[in-house]
């Protein structure tokens, strides 16, 4: 029924201009030739649409309403609660962007991301260069260095939280043994920030190291030999062979690392709960607090989520354009 009407509509538009008909021809031919490809893709499209598209659309919709746990309708047994939330347009966005809190969190989130990814990459690169040489027990080193990555994030976070404990933690015990005073690692905004960055760096370096190591090994050794013959210094070799050779790998892992770190929930949430006060809270942990504590603010947290998503999309676009300008395509 539907098919016939749309076919008819297609015919009608096709008749109107001869140019259209020509265009529809190749498309139909392509469809006929590649129907199996389309058939293969359909399940993926459906599942992706269901798992990613639908929640996303729903999130966008919720962020434009004033839905909270109290205003969302539901029926549980004898209790029937009608939906009383309304469409409020961009009110949520306006109030978030108009609050000092958002900008405060954004600044800290950016610092957190830049410092973490900077350290991830530089330490990862350094370790990768070390491990790329022929050294004894190389595989043992690699194994040990990959270990932090193998530990689940929440386990690592809990272990570190105990290490940092100001009264009974190992770190303070060592400081005391060495004659220094104890430090309230998680009790001061500054030390707490350093503490969470340290944990995140510890957890993220192995991935960078392995990725960069793979990149290093794909650089042909002849290039270095040739450069050495030409009398290039180690710094020149690094600058002109290693760095360009790593560019493809680096650009990808840095972007990935940025997105991951920007949204790194467990480290902050499990180690400091955003405290002291809310000084270590990044955008994601704040959105979580809106969404999952007390009477849940679904619309507010959805708006936070959308803003975070937009920030990352913009970041990725700018980053890609910058890379393309350097002649890089991915």
């Amino acid at each position, binding site marked *: 029924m539907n098919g016939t009407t749309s076919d008819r509509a297609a015919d009608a538009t096709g008749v109107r201009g001869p140019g259209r008909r020509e265009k529809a021809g190749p498309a139909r031919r392509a469809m006929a030739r590649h129907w199996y490809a389309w058939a293969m893709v359909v399940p993926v499209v459906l599942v992706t649409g269901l798992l990613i598209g639908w929640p996303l659309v729903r999130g966008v919709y919720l962020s434009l309403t004033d839905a909270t*746990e*109290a205003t*969302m*309708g*539901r*029926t*549980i*047994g*004898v*209790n*029937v*609660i*009608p*939906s*009383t*939330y*309304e*469409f409020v347009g961009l009110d949520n966005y306006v109030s978030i962007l108009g609050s000092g809190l958002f900008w405060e969190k954004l600044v800290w989130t950016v610092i957190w991301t830049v410092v973490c990814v900077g350290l991830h990459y530089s330490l990862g690169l350094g370790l990768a260069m070390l491990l790329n040489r022929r050294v004894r027990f190389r595989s043992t080193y690699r194994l040990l260095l990959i270990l932090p990555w193998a530990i689940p994030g929440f386990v690592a976070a809990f272990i570190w*939280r105990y290490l*940092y*404990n*100001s*009264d*009974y933690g190992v770190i303070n015990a060592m400081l005391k043994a060495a004659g220094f005073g104890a430090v*309230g690692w*998680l*009790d*001061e*905004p500054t030390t707490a920030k350093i503490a969470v960055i340290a944990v995140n760096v510890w957890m993220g370096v192995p991935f960078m190291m392995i990725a960069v190591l793979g990149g290093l090994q794909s650089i042909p050794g002849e290039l270095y030999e040739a450069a050495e013959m030409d009398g290039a210094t180690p710094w020149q070799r690094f600058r002109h062979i290693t760095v360009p050779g790593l560019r493809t790998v680096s650009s990808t892992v840095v972007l990935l690392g940025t997105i991951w770190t920007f949204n790194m929930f467990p480290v902050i949430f499990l*180690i*400091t*709960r955003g*405290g*002291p*006060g*809310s000084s270590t809270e990044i955008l994601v942990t704040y959105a979580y607090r809106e969404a*999952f*504590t*007390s*009477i*849940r603010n679904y619309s507010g947290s959805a708006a936070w989520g959308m803003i975070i998503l937009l920030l990352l999309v913009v970041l990725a676009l700018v980053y890609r354009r910058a890379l393309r300008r350097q002649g890089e395509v991915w």
Partner: protein
Amino acid sequence: MMRRAFSAATIVAALALAVSACGGGTSDSAAAPAQSAAADPSKISGEITWWDTVRPDSEGPTFQALIKEFEAKYPSIKVKYVNVPSDQAQGQFQTAAQAGTGAPDVIRSEVAWTAQFASLGYLQPLDGTRAVENESDFMASPLSSTKYNGKAYAVPQVTDTLALLYNKKLLEKAGYDKAPTTVEELKKVALDVKSKTGVNGLALNVDSYFLLPFMYGEGGDLLDVQNKKIVVNSPANVKAMATVTDLITSGAAPKPATQDSYANAMTALKDGKAAMIYNGPWALSEIYQGKEFKDKANLGIAPVPAGSAKAGAPTGGWNLAIYAGSKNLGASYEFVRFMSTAEAQAKVAKEISLLPTRTSAYGNPDVQGNKDVATFKPIIDTAVARPWIPEGGQLFQPLLEGYQAIVGGKTTPEDMLKKVDSDYHGIFKDWS
């Protein structure tokens, strides 16, 4: 597009209202036969899930033993015992109840959560069901926490409050045979303990709930519910915060950690590294596992020290509530009824020193035989009832952030309370 969304929402709302009108009618008629059938225990059958929130190692076994007794009495009911950590139960229950799957039939709900759950429609109204038995026997303050809009949504299970828990030996070494009764004395005793024994006098726990005794002590409070007024930013509370700061700066209490400070304070007391802490009866079974209290008699329990106005600690405790979507309401009613009998409460009080909510339970010789309960009873009688409102749970986060800032020396009592006050106005938009 927008208009369509609007009208669809209106239709849904109208339909929901219509359904609720019918729903109310049918449920009333359905409740009646369930009640008459309940008289015969063997006739009710099914499996119910109970989310318990006690400490699984020290308190859990007592409740599991009670379940065994219940199952023996009601052979066709099976109770699935699930222990959920108390700091996660609230969120997990809200998630499960909202989603409509995975919520337990019965939940042990903290007194402050009950009104919130009820206002969100998650709890089964219990008036006139088998779950509620002889309500007049319950103590007034815990009972009031089970009501929302005049209806009962839970049954009080245990009650509690904060007290000063202390290491008698350490206080004796410092020359005291009694606990301090005022905050001034508390400071002096703590400083003497520190100078004479080298051990810290007082370990503070940086948590909103543990701040309330200081505020009540000066005659302060957070809200004036009757007049819909936020009263957190008061001279009394400024004084209370100054007292807390003074305890830390004077050295009576070491500067507390803000992370894990509950656990740190408990460990300090248990290991004899601090002489006094504020805590409630729920902590006793854990404290007795500590090396300083192998001899239980070494633990002193006293009312919280008084401020310039009075000695007062918040009323806490736990209720038993039934999820409105429970598939097995009949069995859930019986279970809640059984768990809140004076006998069941007496057993819990005897074994793990949790305080009964039934006045008649205190007449039970088992309860009278438990020294801790006997000590806590008069303290409970002076406890300050908190406002049982759905937003009650939201009051703690701003206060906690302020407390952390005060401890970190980042703010003054005045500025901190101003900040808390403005946060509260964000929660209660139409309050003065």
